C-alpha cells in the first residue's frame, strides 16, 4: 500500500475551508437586487478559495433564499396596499429570476423547481399576465429540466404543463414534436440501411497494389545509379522501394536500404576515382554522399561508418585534397555519431580522429563531459 496516503489527505484537509466562515443568513435589498446577488455569488460561491462542495452548496442555498424573498417582495408586496407593482420592480424581479435560474442549474435545481411553481401560481392569481408571458414563459424560467441542466436526462418529462396557463404553451413544445418525428424517421432509415448496404471489400487495396509497392514489399528490384544524375536517381530508388506507404517487414526494408546504399557507394567511388573528377563531378558525389549519410543515420549507420574510412583513405591516397577539405571535413561526412543519428548517445565514441588528416581537424567540439 502507498506510504503517502496519510500525508496527502492531511494536506487536502487544510484547503481554505476554515478561512471562510459558514454563513447562511444572506440579505438582498430592493434597490439593486441583481448587483447584490451577483456580488454574493462571486464572493461566497464562485471564489476560487472555496473548494468544499458542502460550503458552496450551503452558501448558495442561503443566497438563493434571499433571492427568492426579494423577488417575492418586488412582485407581490406592493399590490395589495397601494395598488399594483411598478414596471421597474417587475424588471428587477425578471433580471434576478433569470440569473438565479442560471446558477440553480449548476448548484441546485431542486429548490428552484419547487418554488417556481409557487411563484407561478401567485403570479397568475395576482393576474400579472405581462410578467407571466414576457418573463416566465418567454425566457423559459419554469422548472429546470434536461435542456437547462446536466443533472437531468433527456427522457425526463419536459415541464409542458407548467407553461400551459394564461393562454400560453411551452416555447419548446414545437421543437419537441419535431424531434419526436425525426426519431421515428431515423428508426425507419436505420432498418432500410440494413438491407441495402454491401459489406466493405478489404481485398481491394491489395489488388490495386502497384508494381513498385510489390517490389518494395518483396525487396525484388534492381538498384542502379548512374554518374549522370546520381542524387535524383538515389532519391527515386528510396522513394519507390523504401519510402512507400505499404507496410514492409523491417528485414526486407533493411535489405532494400542496403542494396540502394551499395549502389550509392559504387557510383560515388566511380565518380571520384575512375579518371580525374571535375568540380561538377565532385559536387555531385558530395551531394549524394551527404544524402546517403543522412539516411544511414535513420536506417542504420554501421555500414556507412565502416565504408567512409575506406573512402577517406582513397581520397587522401589520390590526393583529392579539395574534396577532403571542402566536402568531407566541412560537411562533416565522417562517421555518424550522436550528432547525426538517434542510434548513438553523447557519451559514445566521438569520431575526432577521423578528421585529423592532411592538416584538418574535426569541425565540431567534443561534448563537454567526455
Amino acid at each position, binding site marked *: 500500500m502507498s506510504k503517502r496516503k496519510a500525508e496527502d*489527505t492531511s494536506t487536502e484537509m487544510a484547503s481554505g475551508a476554515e478561512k471562510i466562515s459558514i454563513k447562511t443568513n444572506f440579505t438582498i435589498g430592493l434597490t439593486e437586487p441583481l448587483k447584490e446577488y451577483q456580488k454574493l455569488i462571486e464572493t461566497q460561491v464562485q471564489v476560487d478559495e472555496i*473548494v468544499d*462542495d458542502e460550503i458552496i452548496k450551503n452558501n448558495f442555498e442561503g443566497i438563493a433564499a434571499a433571492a427568492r424573498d426579494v423577488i417575492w417582495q418586488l412582485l407581490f408586496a406592493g399590490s395589495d396596499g397601494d395598488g399594483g407593482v411598478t414596471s421597474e420592480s417587475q424588471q428587477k424581479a425578471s433580471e434576478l429570476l433569470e440569473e438565479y435560474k442560471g446558477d440553480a442549474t*449548476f448548484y441546485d435545481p431542486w429548490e428552484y423547481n419547487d418554488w417556481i411553481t409557487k411563484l407561478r401560481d401567485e403570479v397568475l392569481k395576482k393576474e400579472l399576465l405581462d410578467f407571466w408571458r414576457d418573463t416566465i414563459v418567454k425566457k423559459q424560467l419554469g422548472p429546470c429540466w434536461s435542456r437547462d441542466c446536466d*443533472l437531468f*436526462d*433527456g*427522457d425526463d418529462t419536459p415541464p409542458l404543463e407548467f407553461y400551459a396557463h394564461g393562454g400560453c404553451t411551452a416555447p419548446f413544445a414545437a421543437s419537441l414534436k419535431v424531434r419526436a418525428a425525426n*426519431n421515428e424517421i431515423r428508426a425507419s432509415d436505420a432498418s432500410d*440501411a440494413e438491407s441495402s448496404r454491401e459489406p466493405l471489400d478489404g481485398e481491394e487495396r491489395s489488388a490495386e497494389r502497384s508494381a513498385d509497392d510489390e517490389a518494395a514489399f518483396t525487396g525484388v528490384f534492381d538498384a542502379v545509379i548512374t554518374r549522370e544524375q546520381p542524387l535524383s536517381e538515389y532519391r527515386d530508388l528510396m522513394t519507390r522501394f523504401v519510402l512507400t506507404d505499404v507496410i514492409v517487414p523491417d528485414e526486407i526494408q533493411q535489405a532494400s536500404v542496403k542494396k540502394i546504399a551499395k549502389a550509392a557507394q559504387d557510383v560515388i567511388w566511380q565518380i571520384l576515382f575512375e579518371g580525374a573528377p571535375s568540380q561538377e563531378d565532385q559536387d555531385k558525389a558530395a551531394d549524394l554522399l551527404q544524402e546517403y549519410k543522412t539516411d544511414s543515420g535513420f536506417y542504420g549507420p554501421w555500414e556507412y561508418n565502416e565504408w567512409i574510412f575506406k573512402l577517406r583513405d582513397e581520397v587522401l591516397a589520390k590526393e583529392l585534397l579539395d574534396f577532403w577539405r571542402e566536402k568531407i571535413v566541412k560537411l562533416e561526412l565522417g562517421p555518424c555519431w550522436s550528432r547525426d543519428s538517434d542510434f548513438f548517445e553523447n557519451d559514445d565514441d566521438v569520431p575526432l580522429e577521423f578528421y585529423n588528416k592532411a592538416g584538418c581537424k574535426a569541425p565540431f567540439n567534443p561534448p563537454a563531459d567526455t
Partner: protein
Amino acid sequence: SLVPAANSANLTATQSRVSQIMKYGFPGLDHVRSHSDYVLSYDRRNRIPHWVFEHLTAESVARNDAVDRSKCDFKPDESIHPFFRSQNTDYRKSGFDRGHMAAAGNHRLHQKHCEETFYLSNMAPQVGQGFNRDAWNTLEMHVRKLTKSYTNVYVCTGPLYLPHKEDNGKMYVKYEVIGSNTVAVPTHFYKVIVGEATDHKLHMEAYVMPNKVISNDTPLNVFQVPPETIERAAGLLFFDQINRKHLTSINGNIV
C-alpha cells in the same frame, strides 16, 4: 435470470454483477473501479474515464418512481487520489456540462445504482445545449431502446482525443482542459454496443460523435464507424472475448 434480484446483496459491486457486466472482456485495465451497476476505468492524467461499461435490460431502464433523482448529486469520487480527482469547481463557469458516461437513465432499478452514476469520476466535460442535452442524449435513448429488441445490451462509452491536420500538413491532437485540476475536454465521444438477441445472436453498433453542437436533424447512422477505428484511436480493444466472426451484424450490415 440475468437481472439481479432486488435485494441488498446487489447494492454493492458484487463479483457476480461485475462478471455479468464485463462478460465480453475488459477494454483495458487501467484503474478499474466497480460500482453497483457499472464498471469504469479512470484516466488519472485526464481526470475523466477511459471507458465505462454497462449492462442494460428492459427492466433496468424502465421508469421507476422509487428512484428519487433529487437525492442524486454530483460528488467527487473519494476513491480517486486527490491529485487526480475532478471537482465540481472544475466544471463551474467552464461552459461545459458534467456529462455522464454511464447515463443515469440506464440505472433505474435502485436508488443507489442511480446515485453512483453521479460520481464525478463518471463525468467528462460535454457541450451542453446541442450535444449532451441533444444529439448525445438521443444516442443514449437509442441504446435504451435497444433493450426492446435484445435481451441483453452491453455498452462501452468513453472519450476520444482525435487528431486533425493543420495548414502545415502535420497532424495535431488539441483539447481544452478546465479548472484547477485541468480536466480534459475530449474532442469526441464513442459508444460501442453489443445486443444479444433471444436467439443468442450478437449485433454490434459503434458510434463516434464530436463534442460540439450537432444539428437536431442529423440522423444517428451518420455517426456510425467501424469499431476498429475507435479501438485504434482510444488505445482499447472492445468485446475482446467475442470473435468478430461470431457477430451477426456490425452497424446493421450482415457480416
